Structures are given as C-alpha cells and as structure tokens.
C-alpha cells in the first residue's frame, strides 16, 4: 500500500466520534464572534469580562500597531513628497529597487529576474493593496513584489499604502484577499525581528532592517515625466 493510502486508511479507521460540525467563520467587520458559534454550552451564561472595544478609526489604530511592531509610518501628499521622503530617509543608499511608478529607483527588476541579483539592494520600494489595523500589517503578493525576494532581501523596505485600503481586523482582511491569486502572499507587520537572545527585541534579524509605510492615496498626482 502506498504511504498515502496507508495514512488515509489509518485516519479513517481512527476518526473520533461524534463528528463535530463546522462553525461559521467570522467574515464581516463588526460581526460578533458569538454569531458564528453553534455552541450552546455555559459560555454565554458566564459573566463577561468588560473589555473596551476598539473604537479607534482604522487608520490611527493601524499607525499605533505598526509602530508597536517596530515599523515607521509617514503621511505623504503625493509622489514628489514620497520621492523626497525616500531620499531623505536613506541618504547613503546605493541601490534603490522600486517597483512603483511614484518613486524612481536605480535598479530594475522584472519577473524573470534571478532573486540572487537582489542581494545588494539597499532600499526596496513596493505598494501594498491592503493594510490591517488590528495588527499593523501590510499585505504583499508576488503581483506587487514582482520578485518575492525583494520584500526580504532589501536592507530597508518602503511600502506605499492607500489609507482607504486599511481594514479593521484579520477577519476583514481574509475576506478581501484571494489566496490562490498569487503563489506567495505575506502579511508584513514591521521589519524583521528577533528576541532569541535573552528576549531582547532586535530589528533586522534576517529580513528588512526597517519597514516604512508611506500613507498616500493611490490617485495622488503622479510625477511629471
């Protein structure tokens, strides 16, 4: 018998009974999780601990969470300001690889490029199509990154994000994205980090040393050619 058939046979023989029904998954902003549970145990009769629900606007909460994760967030009005910001933040950068029209770089990347060729990138610039307030995360896929390694090999990463594209929770985020539309998709919340030596938080373990989100509307004025 093949390993596959042996495993499936063993699993079938040993399935626990009774089978547990699948609860609804939460999917819309603000929907109470209770509504998803077919559960009728004593959970709901227990006195609830009073939490202060998050009433902050998504953009300000996103900012707070991203900063807590070690990221930086700046508001820029339009493309010229974005270019100035990148130049100002990384004056020593030799290789800037941008895949957005708003910020010109000096290294081109195409989908056929060898990821190894990005090892010397000082600053990568990309645009995210989705931000999540509760976690301060931006969503990036192969479609935005062109070459996936750009997001993690760049010493510093700059991400353009339209404030309109920020949703409240991870539930909302998964409701918006189509996972099979790209072979790779990542929620990036701040730069690379580690606490592996005595719990001391250090940024820039393996991936980007810093992550800067530039909040800028997608339809902001493009630079003149």
């Amino acid at each position, binding site marked *: 018998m093949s390993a596959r058939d042996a495993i499936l046979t063993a699993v079938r023989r040993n399935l626990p009974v009774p089978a547990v*029904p699948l609860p609804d*998954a939460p999917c819309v902003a603000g929907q109470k999780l209770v509504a998803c549970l077919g559960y009728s145990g004593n959970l709901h009769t227990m006195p609830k601990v009073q939490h202060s629900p998050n009433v902050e606007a998504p953009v300000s909460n996103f900012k707070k969470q991203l900063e807590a994760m070690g990221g930086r967030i700046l508001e820029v009005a339009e493309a010229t300001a974005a270019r100035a910001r990148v130049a100002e933040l990384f004056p020593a950068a030799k290789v800037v690889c941008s895949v957005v029209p708003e910020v010109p770089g000096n290294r081109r990347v195409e989908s056929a490029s060898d*990821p190894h060729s990005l090892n010397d990138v000082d600053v990568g610039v990309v645009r995210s199509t989705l931000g999540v307030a509760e976690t301060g995360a931006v969503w990036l896929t192969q479609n935005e990154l062109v070459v*996936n390694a750009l997001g993690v090999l760049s010493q510093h990463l700059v991400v353009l994000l339209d404030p309109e594209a920020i949703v409240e929770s991870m539930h909302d985020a998964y409701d918006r994205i189509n996972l099979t539309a790209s072979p790779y998709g990542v929620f990036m919340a701040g730069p690379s980090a580690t606490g*592996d030596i005595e*719990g001391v938080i250090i940024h820039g373990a*393996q991936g*980007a040393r810093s992550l800067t989100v530039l909040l800028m509307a997608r339809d902001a004025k493009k630079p003149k050619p």
Partner: protein
Amino acid sequence: MSLPAMIKLKNRPVDPEALAARFIALENHEITHDRLVWRMRTNRDEAIAGVPDWQELRELASQIKEHTLTHLDDYLEQFEENAKNLGTIVHWARDAEEHNATVHEILKSHGVKSLIKSKSMLQEECGMTPYLEKRGIEVTESDLGERIQQLSNEPPSHIVVPAIHKLRTDVAELFAKNLGTDGNNSDPHYLTEAMRENARPRFMKAGAGMTGANFAVAETGGFVVCTNEGNADIGASVPPLHIASIGIEKLIPRARDLGVFIRMLSRSALGSPITQYTSHFHGPRKGGELHVILVDNTRSDRLGSDDFWHALKCIRCGACMNTCPVYRRSGGLSYGATYSGPIGVILDPGLDLSKYRELPFHSSLCGSCSEVCPVKIDISDQIYKWRRVVAEKGLMRVSKAVGMSALGKVLPHPELFHAAELAAESALAHTPRFLLYNTLNPWGKHREMPAAAPQTFRQWYIANRRPK
C-alpha cells in the same frame, strides 16, 4: 483506552529531575529563564485583554480544529487535490524515516548539497538534520534561536524561542567558537548582526530552502508559515527549490479560518498582535519548484485515542510552557525531548512511552496550561491520564510505585488511615534528621519538613465540634 502503535518500549527513560538539577546548578540561568518566560506570559495577558471576545475566539478555534480532525480524511484529500492543481508536488510519509528519505530523495535528484531551513518542530521530531548531514548535505538553521541550538548540539528548549534557556554570555562564547566573533562581546545586537552576516551567503548558495507550516488550508491547497525574522521567506524565495514538511494535523478547512488562528497565535505566544511575517504559499513561485510532505508519524494513532486526540489541536504557540511553574524553573532541556513544557508532557509519551515515562510526573497539575491554551486542549487532564497509562503499563519508577501502592491500600480504609496518621505524627517528631533529609527522600531536598500539629484534625474535631 486504545493506544495501539503509540506504545513503544525500547528506549531508556530520560530523567527530568536530574536534567533540571543540572540546569538549576548553572549560575543565574534559572532566575533569568523564569523572568524571561514569565514575561511572555504577562505580555500575552496584556495582548488578549485588548481583544474583545477572546473566549469566543478560543471556542471557535477549538471547534474548527475538532471539526477538521473528525473529518481529517476528507480534508487531506481536498488539500492534496487543490495543492496539485496549483502545481505543488505532494508527498506522503508514514513516519520519520519515510519523511527524511523523501527529503533526501528530492535533494539528491536536484543535486542539492547545501540546504537552508527555517524552524520546524516536525523536522526536529523526525531527526531530519542529522539524517541529511550523515548523507553529506550541509544543513543550516536560519532562525537565530535554532542556529544557536544547532551549534550547541541541543534540541530546542522552547517551541517559539528555542534558546531562551541560554544567557547572552553563553551565546557569545558559542559564536566566538563557531562564527569567529569577539567572545568578550555579549551584546545581543552584535551577536544578532553576526548571525545575519553569516547567514546571508548561506541563503545565496543554498540549493534548496525548507520550511514547516503553521496551517495548511484544504480549500485552497496552500499553507502558512509564521516567523518574526523573515527567514522562512528568504529560504522560500531565493533558492529555486522549496520543500515544506507538514504534519497531517495542521489542516484547517477554509481560508477564512486563518483569521481566527492568526489573531490568536502570536498573541498567545509572545503577546504581539501578529508575527512580523505571516506568509502564504500557494503553488511554486515563478521559476521555482514547490514540494510538500504530509507526515503522519503517530498522529493517526493518536487520532484513535479518546483520551489523547485533542492534543492534535495544538497550534504550537508555547503559551502552556510560558505559564508552567515547572517548565519555568527547570528549563526546556530538562524534558530531554523535541517538545518540552506541558504540551511536551502530553505529546512525547505518544512518540515513545518508554523513553518519556517520567515526563507526566514533571508537572504540578496546577491546570494553568489548560487555562491559557488558545484552542482549549485539556492539557492538565491529559497529563493526569498519561500518569495512569504509565502506571498501568508497569513503568512507574520504584520509589513512586511503592508510595502510591501503599496509599492505595491505606486511603480506602479510615481505620488504617487514622493509625497511619498518628504513627506519622509521632514518627516525624522523633525521627533523627539524617533519616528525613537523605537522598532517598526527594521532599527533604531544599526544604524543611513542617512541624507536626499537636493533634490531628480528627482529634480536634472529636474534642471540639462533634455533636455530643
């Protein structure tokens, strides 16, 4: 209770007490470990206080996992079909040996000599690294904590922070020997940077990258890897070949279910709202090749055990370790196993009962682990049940078995109990110190026996409260 193939009786038992004593004897290690690990627990408390409906989220997570496990055959087939449709090559492995051989076969057929990997508890469980190294493949752990453990020839001591039992000075010494750093510089920033500089060329030359998986989604045929360093992403995006090892219990039905688990994982682990990188892999990237290996290795046996199948719900957050008073004071290496802490106590005996027969007693049964578990595993109940299995299989240590069997005879008979109680009281008052504080009585270590009360509770009750 059915525990068919889970029971293996070939290996010598690990002795957690002796291993813990070794850790405690090191200067400053126990106190620092306790402080760091407990801080993760308090960070977790703060993080979940900011999530309304945390208890509902736990219940939802538990139900989704239980549903998946009670329909696991269907979801495995669904995952396989969808993964194949995306161009992923799917392998199956019954046990550790089959998993390792599959990995080796893939590497060999691609001429890979050098492998870069991110953290995977399953690959640890399978003993994959030594297996590949024996066959001439250079394996580099890219997670800082795992790399420290690899260079130390030790298993991870914690499932989230593998080297948390080490002081910065230990790491400085280790890196000086292996990476050529200044042994007198124990600044974690300096050491982390040294690791980064050492790892980059290894990512560049590696012929393959390996990862584990935190979740595999049946509906989409993809999987999710959570890291803070981004090391899994480099390993998956730079070398042309990506291989992921996935335990069959990692399945969840729908993409939307990820919202539930991702919200809980890092909050439970470290207290951050999410890991820095939550990466989704659906088929090979442009110009790359993707293999997944679905691994059983006793999981299907456990599924058939009424008492122990709920442990398969585990999402490997480590919250139970962070809260455990025994784990915090004795260190993860005291378990002598791949999985340490309360979750280790209930997982390890299923992998090798003989070897891990002492672990169920490495617990105070305080129950805190069950309270913090984000997927509501009855961890402390299972620890108790493993004690029963150990006793029933005749694997109790002699000193424990003698005491337990005496209690079993005395407790059901009140007259025997009263006689024993009076005898003990008198004995305690008149026993020479050398009999109480000797090496045969572990309760005499590090503590003085309490002074015996002048009368037993029963004597007092008869004298003062008994209706005349």
